């Protein structure tokens, strides 16, 4: 069901898209020539259709080719970008930050930076060059440098252009090309000339079609430069030992020239209930699947899922950690005897980990130190916490395996790309006797055992097994919903004043949120919030009844009084009894939607109101019962009224059964909420009995 939402529009493996053309042909003409802006770019009529834009990217062009640096391959990407600044609000487009990674001896390097701003002043084209001495490098973190520059003399109507080359040693990560951004793009083109020695997998995503997608076979030459010096033993390229002279060799090989382009790419808009825009933006990703060096056999780099499984188990920061969990033995001693039931025992182990290690908010799938260190510091990443959990579960005699996943904010995992870097989180899976799996996470004390935090609800995770062949995908569909239950007794007096008693429960994810909120605010402020949401009420009594145990719903009881409305009419009373207990605004505020609505988990809201009318009064008219259904059983709203004596009983129940609704379902969802809110706001006319 969920998989069908990931329509083929969103993901496509590129080879299917590529038209293979003949092996000859001239290289296509570059879409942009630095230093030669089009005179039309200074004419207002060229931008008539862009009234909504502050700036327009006229052309964004990247070319990647490979070269040898000594005996190591590198790739170089030239980038040329030209932007038209339409409004002052678009000035930010003139400031560019280029992140450059470095790790050990490998790095990304920026060179050849140049830029120019063109202004048309009284019919004359004025050029102002970027002064390289006014560009900066910031060492943001240990592995990240940011090269920063801003174009000079930027005004409304200016055309700016800049170009630079990034040289990278990180062959595994041929950089993504993102066609879509904060400004509309007229033309975005990326070319890559990839020698036969490198086998990249390519993945296209997004909602914008390609205007160009071609591949041409050609040839290329690469010069291998071997430095002179004393070669040591058998490690040398040529074997033997002794003094060697520097030398140059030429490699000639087949090169595939790829070309992709998009035309008139719209702006990426952030919408509510999304995972991350990264999941939807028009982009092409590359991952190195393998290398095929001259004279050598094909070497797989991009793994199979099975190989990833095996490697992870061998990894010092992952699988090898489980064998070092002996220090946990003492902690979990006796649990096996006390809790023969695996579910209960898992919950008890989880409590021990929750109490011992604090999740520090960093998401990782592997530890970057060792588990003992995190245990001693009482603090760690999601990997530290949950790998400790797995080790402890095993010490307690349970079977437990890691499940890798990517959090919602990190973006979805594509099952056809066996890539570790796409994951950033790990949880535990405990197989149960009935064939079901118990997914356990120990980062959030407000959730019960067996419920993953909402950040983990990203559809699928990868189970890592002792036998690689047994590894598989695991459904991360939430085991819990957002549940909100309210039971209200309302007494109306003949003047229109109200007295109410409310019992409220939050369960599932709503329960966890309420517990978190209570912990953050403290009980006094938490209860004061009720008054903030209902400013017409006086709340003389309020108490949180239950919140300690995460297994039971979070419960709350309070009473309130509401004085009569100033303009009540004698003899007739008007009241919307449900309105204060439902939401006052439709959460879907925009008419249309580009991307799926991703709630993470299904939702249920139940509201029971028993309204006692003043003596001698009755409803002038009973509201109509209603059932509103979403198409395909996606959800239902039920509204029901029953009068017993002087008490009118209302039942209002919302059920949204799916965690994710497609963009096509958006209109229905919006209308569904509208009808529900209208029903909840309905006004009763209460009159004196004749």
């Amino acid at each position: 069901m969920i998989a069908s939402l990931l329509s083929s529009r969103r993901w496509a493996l590129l080879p299917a898209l590529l038209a293979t053309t003949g092996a000859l042909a001239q290289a296509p003409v570059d879409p942009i020539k630095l230093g030669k802006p089009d005179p039309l770019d200074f004419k207002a009529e060229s931008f008539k259709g862009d009234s909504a834009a502050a700036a327009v990217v006229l052309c964004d062009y990247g070319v990647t080719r490979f070269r040898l640096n000594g005996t190591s391959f590198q790739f170089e990407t030239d980038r040329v970008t030209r932007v038209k600044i339409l409004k002052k609000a678009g000035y930010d487009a003139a400031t560019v930050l280029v992140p450059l990674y470095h790790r050990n001896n490998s790095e990304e390097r920026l060179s050849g930076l140049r830029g120019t701003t063109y202004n048309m002043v009284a019919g004359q084209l004025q050029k102002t060059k970027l002064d390289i001495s006014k560009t900066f490098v910031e060492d943001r973190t240990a592995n990240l440098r940011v090269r920063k520059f801003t174009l000079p003399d930027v005004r409304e109507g200016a055309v700016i252009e800049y170009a630079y080359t990034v040289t990278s040693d990180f062959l595994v990560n041929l950089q993504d090309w993102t066609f879509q951004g904060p400004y509309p793009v007229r033309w975005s083109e990326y070319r890559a000339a990839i020698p036969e020695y490198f086998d990249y997998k390519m993945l296209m995503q997004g909602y914008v079609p390609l205007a160009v997608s071609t591949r041409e076979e050609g040839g290329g030459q690469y010069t291998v430069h071997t430095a002179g010096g004393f070669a040591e033993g058998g490690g040398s390229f040529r074997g033997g030992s002794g003094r060697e002279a520097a030398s140059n060799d030429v490699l000639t090989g087949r090169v595939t020239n790829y070309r992709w382009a998009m035309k008139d790419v719209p702006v990426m808009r952030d919408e509510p209930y999304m995972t991350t825009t990264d999941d939807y933006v028009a982009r092409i990703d590359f991952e190195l699947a393998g290398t095929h060096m001259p004279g050598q056999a094909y070497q797989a780099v991009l793994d199979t899922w099975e190989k990833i499984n095996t490697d992870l188990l061998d990894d010092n920061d992952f699988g090898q950690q489980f064998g070092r969990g002996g220090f946990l033995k003492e902690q979990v001693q006796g649990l096996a005897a006390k809790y023969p039931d695996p579910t209960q025992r898992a919950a008890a182990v989880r409590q021990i980990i929750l109490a011992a290690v604090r999740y520090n908010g960093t998401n990782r799938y592997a530890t970057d130190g060792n588990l003992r260190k995190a245990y001693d510091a009482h603090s760690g990443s999601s990997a530290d916490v949950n790998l400790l959990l797995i080790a402890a579960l095993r010490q307690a005699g349970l079977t437990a395996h890691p499940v890798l996943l990517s959090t919602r904010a990190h973006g979805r995992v594509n099952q056809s790309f066996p890539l570790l870097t796409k994951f950033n989180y790990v949880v535990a899976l405990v197989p149960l006797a009935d064939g079901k799996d118990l997914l356990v996470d120990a980062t959030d004390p407000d959730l019960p055992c067996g419920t993953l935090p909402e950040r983990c609800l990203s559809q699928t995770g990868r189970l890592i097994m002792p036998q690689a062949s047994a590894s598989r995908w695991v459904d991360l569909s939430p085991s819990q919903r957002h549940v909100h239950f309210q039971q209200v007794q309302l007494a109306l007096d003949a003047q229109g004043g109200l007295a109410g008693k409310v019992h409220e429960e939050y369960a599932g994810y709503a329960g966890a949120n309420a517990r978190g909120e209570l912990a953050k605010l403290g009980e006094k402020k938490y209860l004061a919030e009720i008054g903030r949401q209902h400013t017409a009420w006086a709340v003389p009594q309020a108490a949180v009844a239950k919140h300690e145990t995460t297994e039971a719903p979070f419960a709350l009881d309070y009473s309130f009084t509401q004085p009569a409305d100033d303009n009540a009419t004698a003899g007739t009373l008007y009241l919307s009894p449900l309105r204060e207990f439902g939401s006052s605004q439709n959460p879907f505020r925009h008419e249309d939607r580009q991307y799926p609505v991703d709630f993470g988990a299904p939702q249920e809201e139940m509201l029971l109101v028993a309204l006692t009318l003043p003596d001698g009064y009755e409803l002038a008219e009973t509201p109509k019962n209603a059932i509103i259904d979403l198409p395909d059983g996606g959800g239902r709203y039920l509204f029901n009224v029953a009068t017993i004596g002087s008490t009118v009983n209302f039942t209002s129940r919302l059920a949204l059964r799916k965690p994710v609704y497609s963009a096509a379902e958006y209109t229905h969802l919006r209308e569904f909420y509208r009808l529900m809110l209208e029903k909840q706001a309905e006004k009763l006319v209460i009159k004196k009995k004749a």
Partner: protein
Amino acid sequence: MKAKNLLALLFAVPLSGAPRFAPVGAPEPKYSVATIPAALREGAHAVLRADDEVVTVKSAGRLVHTVHKVITVLDAGGDAFGRTTVGYDALNAIGYLRGAVYDADGRLLHQLRASEIRDQGVGDAGGSLMTDVRVRYADLRQPQVPYTVEFDYEVVSDNTLFYPTWQPQDEEGLAVQSATLRVSTPAALPLRYQERQWPAGAPLQHTRAGSQEQYAWALADRPALDEEDNAPPLADTTPGVALAPGAFEVQGHAGSASTWQSFGQWNYELNAGRAVLPPATIAKVAELIKDAPDPRTRVARLYNLLQGSTRYISVQLGLGGWQTFPASAVATSGYGDCKALSNYTMALLATAGVPAYVALIGAGSDHADLRPDFPSNQFNHAIVCVPLASAGRPDTLWLECTSQTTALGYMGSFTGNRHALLLTPKGGQVVATPRYRCADNRRERRIDLYLDAAGAATATARTLRTGQEQDTYAQLLHELGPTEQKQYVAEHLRLSTFTISRFGLAAAPGAGTPGVVETLGLALPGYAPPSGKRVFVSPNLLSRLPALPAQVGTRQTALWVPRASLQADTVQLHFPAGFQPETLPAPVQMATAYGNYSAQYQALPDGTVRYVRRLEMPRLHLPAASYAGYVDFRRKISAADRAQVVLLKTDV
């Protein structure tokens, strides 16, 4: 919005430290939670067990600030205190940063390791392209509360323009068990200080030992406070001591902050000689003003030139937080920070024969006004002041030079309603920026609301906002595209379900206080569904002011409403044939110390109903006892704003 930092702000917060006890693996328990008095746990998320800060003035150009802080986190609400961040830059070095954490019984749980301290650049935070400010931070949050963290750090500062300000109770929910500040300074460099909200009975201890002067302040047993609605900021209500230099020296530039005059003099001289423009710019200015003898017209034209050809880009390195780029650099690059753009503007005006001054100011809608009685660095921004006169009376123009869109002379919420320090050749001089009153900050709205027989409605609304009421909308208008503008408005309408059928934002014509006009077309399905033969309509579609929550406990702090405003609404209610008004709400008229409110309904001969609402609220600074009256005023407004017209179906 635009954070035109003079680096200053980052260090306005005390950020240095003092090591009284280096945390070593002491076996005996420390800071047991049981020793916290019950009164301090009441309403507290965390308790400051000890805050011992020492400021040592080494010379006019160097100061060392050491901090030893011990905080017990009582519950999840106090979790943020389990972490600490220490900033540094080219002129402020961190000597050391150490930490330890203890359990509820005071047993050492963990000692912070060097490898656990993160270090990173603050990047483009605050809109700066480049800054040398970096942070180190440490996270000692624990899985179980309560726990106690202990942090020790030292900052060695070569920027003595800034002395630390000490205010231990700087957050709500934080009780203070013990806090001390000690200052040691050579007698030749006498300390300047200001005690703020300082309690009686805890006098300063001032001693002299040889050539050193010692000052010591101590606070103890301060229960936690709640931040209340419509209240002054905590910084204005809890005790603290502000420190400032007399003589100081930054990178060879010596000065004195003893008076505003001398503080201004130092700034003026630091930037003197940097207002020289290239010949091409001078020629451009001459061309622009040749037919404009009137100084005001000249200012308008040059401000227009500035706004059309420059933009705000901040580069803050070393003394660059205080010393401007030369005007010639702005002329070639077309960008600069607040100082550079202000200096450039001053140079343009000087070329045109209009004298003007750069002025330092504490900018931001929630920035405290200048404390004129304590000359010290209280600034984070620079603007330009042009002292003009009209008909013999002063008619000063103030220019925000970092905005490409702000109206000439407009300061708004960012820099209006406060004091600034003019930098003149004779030194500094404190002057007031424009004050915006009810009549300046207006929101005038006219709505036609059309109802159909099924209960759906459509509406057209035209809203003029002026002065501080338009600040957000002016930003929307100038800084976002139409699509994002509409999205913002859709997200802020307090309506159940609606569709925006028409939308536009435009600058209101005319000089004076700037304004923005918003036109809105709305479709409102199910706005007023009939209940039997009656229809209930709220004519106040867009201007309902919510009530305040009922006060829990006794109000502690003063009532503050920082902005004066005037709202005027007219709604014409049109309904279909076959309906007639059964009940119109009674008129409401209130004249109070908190403001004036009126609402009137009138059935017009053309069959429509007209609703007229007016709310005038002055800027309020009233004692805590007035709060109940204000809540009542707001409750009555809210009730009146929700009043409904009842229509009766007549054709059934």
